[in-house]
């Protein structure tokens, strides 16, 4: 794999990973707003997942 291909493939997973870590830590660091932030952040991967599973691609 070339560097460019490597970057393309791992870009979204890297962003998702960062979001997940932030979500896992925020509920640990505080209550109230921090918990809510955690829910919001951790919901993103799950929303994305359902989006990709449900959508219909035109190509096929």
């Amino acid at each position, binding site marked *: *794999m*070339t*560097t460019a*291909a*490597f970057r*393309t*493939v*791992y*870009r*979204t*997973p890297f962003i*998702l*990973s960062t979001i*997940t*870590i932030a979500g*896992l830590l925020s*509920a*640990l*660091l*505080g*209550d109230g707003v*921090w*918990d809510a932030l*955690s*829910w919001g952040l*951790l*919901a993103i*991967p*799950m929303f*994305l*997942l359902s*989006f*990709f*599973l449900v959508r*219909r*691609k035109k190509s*096929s």
Partner: protein
Amino acid sequence: MAHLNAQTVRTWYRLHKWTSLICTALLLMACVTGLPLVFHDELDALLDQHVAPAKAEAGAPAANLDQMIAQAQARFPSMHPYAIGWDDDEPRIFVNMSSVDDPRSSKDIRSMIFDAHTGRLLETEKDRFDLLSVLLRLHREIFLGLPGELIMGAMALSFVLSLVSGALVYGPFMRRLEFGTYRRDGAKRTRWFDLHNLLGIVTLTWALVVGATGVMNALSTPLFGLWRAQTLPKIMAPYRGKPVPTHFRSVDESVKQVAAALPEMEISSVLFPNPIFSSPRHYLVWTKGKTPVTSRMFTPALVDVETGSLAISGGLPWYLRILELSRPLHFGDYGGLPLKIIWGLFDVALIVVLVSGVYLWLSKRRSPIERELDHLVERESLRHAGAL
């Protein structure tokens, strides 16, 4: 790093396959039993109606612990006080009685629950089949005690390796595919392959955290043993040759003494003199901080049951601090019900990753994966040949 050699990819793929196969069966069990365990509090409240403590104003005085102990002793004369626990959420105090020093399961313990302010007895836990505690024992130690804990720890380690190697082979396999590709109209195997990749990469970080903290939790028994071995001999040295005390001073006074010595902490639990888990001549009082982060950090204090002299060993060593932080990150019970629901969704997604992984392995015969790998090897070797 960026130019991935096809042979390297093959090695990672093998590592992914074998580490996954090692842990899959037990991991599936852990995922399935873990799901209800995430909702432990809710299920517990649902399965068992609790008597609520009286409403108390802030700063209301605490009830006398000695009277609770006396009541529990009268109710269970053949047992001895084992521990006192303070409920995190409600002003309730659990007095746990046991006839052994190392209770293995909830069967070995009888609990009486008291109102923390009025001291009134709220309920005596019945001797009943406790599904959640059975699930927990299965999840943690497959009913095998310490060896089971270590087996589950090794399984979790294998899981972490499988995740890392899985993330590494994800790149080569996905390089011609868009993120989130799910060919729902493709061949059955293609669908499962896409599902495995998509769910695997989306849940990767969560799974790594739960896996790594699972390894830490599995090591809790030996780590606490190590800490006791490092700490207790110093504390016990002055008592050498003295008989083990049979008469204990007031636990209420001892707790008040610790609370006064550590004003920035709150009392979490008390372990009665115990030759296995602590000292046979001290109350072990666990205190915790008051902020969201420090409430995960415990500081132990030992109170001599005869003289009342206080020994505070200071904070815990780093490995127990990591263990303390590992617990919430493994259980997912630290951010309210919405976090638990999200935790449950991640868990279900992980179950699908496991099942699809097993499917891909079972339907292997010259599978797309192996064919894909052969293409990779071929292409890379051609490229190398061309470059030479």
